[in-house]
């Protein structure tokens, strides 16, 4: 949010070196280094996370094993009590107590591993967000600066006369005029093509003895024949 405001202030102020107005070159380098460091930290955290998660799983399996063992000894202790063998039941109870201490140690360790996993995951998430934010900010600064420099080149190019900046409406009129010319030329060329192809069709018809001329010949011949017939009568 703060960054957007800085950028707006720099643009509104017409700063010549926008990138430097928001973050100087040294600042950008420091920022980029921070991003690199954060990426390295994430890599390390992800590798640590794998180790902690493995320990967490091991502790989980150990707890399961101990719980089964406790259950098994409890059932054995009950059998001893059923046989009124108090001494044996006492020994088993002692074993159970030892196992329960071990179980408690494993449970505490597992809770610690779980908490560690959660905090590393949260740290990775936050670092990713920070990297994304920094990268977007740097990209904005660099793009703004790049556009500013590009605009400078374009303006010099236009003002230098290599490419004239004409008023928009005038440009549009010229383009439309040229497009109308093209379109007129196309219509003219099409009608010329029609005429030319029409003529050649006429020629083909003549060659085949079809059309006005052959009809006229036929009519004259018929007329002459009729005339001679009339004279003979």
């Amino acid at each position, binding site marked *: 949010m703060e960054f957007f405001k800085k950028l707006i202030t720099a643009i509104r102020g*017409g700063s010549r070196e926008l990138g430097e107005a928001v973050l100087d070159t040294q600042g950008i380098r420091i920022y980029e280094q921070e991003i690199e460091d954060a990426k390295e930290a994430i890599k390390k955290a992800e590798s640590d996370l794998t180790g902690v998660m493995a320990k967490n799983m091991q502790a989980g399996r150990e707890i399961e094993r101990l719980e089964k063992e406790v259950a098994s000894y409890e059932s054995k202790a009950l059998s001893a009590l059923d046989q009124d063998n108090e001494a044996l039941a006492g020994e088993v109870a002692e074993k159970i107590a030892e196992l329960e201490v071990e179980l408690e140690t494993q449970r505490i360790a597992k809770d610690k591993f779980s908490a560690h996993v959660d905090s590393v995951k949260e740290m990775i998430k936050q670092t990713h967000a920070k990297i994304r934010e920094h990268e977007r900010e740097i*990209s904005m600064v*660099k*793009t703004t600066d*790049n*556009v*500013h*420099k*590009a*605009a*400078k*080149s*374009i*303006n*010099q*190019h236009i003002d230098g006369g290599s*490419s*004239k*900046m*004409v*008023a*928009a*409406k*005038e*440009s*549009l009129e*010229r*383009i439309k005029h*040229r*497009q109308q010319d*093209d379109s007129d030329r196309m219509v003219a060329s099409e009608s010329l093509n029609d005429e030319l192809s029409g003529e050649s069709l006429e020629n083909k018809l003549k060659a085949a003895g079809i059309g006005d001329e052959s009809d006229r010949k036929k009519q004259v011949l018929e007329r002459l024949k009729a005339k001679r017939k009339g004279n003979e009568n």
Partner: protein
Amino acid sequence: MNNLLEKLERVLGMSDTGSLNGLEYEFNPIPGEVEVVQVAFKDREELPIYLTQSESQMLCICYLWDDEEVISDKRAEMLEVMLDMNIPMPLSSFGRIGSRYTIFGALSLESSAESIARELTVLSDNALDAIDAMSEYLN
């Protein structure tokens, strides 16, 4: 960063002149601190497109009009219409660089030849339509 002109030639598979979606074009590099390539379409030379690229994107920019050309008491209305048009206008957006209003499109640096070709031709069509549609706000 890849050389922009080389990239255009490689991606579009063409030299500095040719045809894109039926429009004849001419590429022309512009000297300066950053790389800028001017693309002029035949019969639309007054409205060339300028290509430049930063680390994160490729920008295609077409200058429309200068602030001086805007009818001053219609300026606020024009700006609102431009904002309203920004979303429906295909692939392009309105912007401003200094005192010059622009229409531009941003592309990923990994854009395909088809995307670049479409961006350039659609931007040119949009520029013509935009000036036509906004001419009532211009002197």
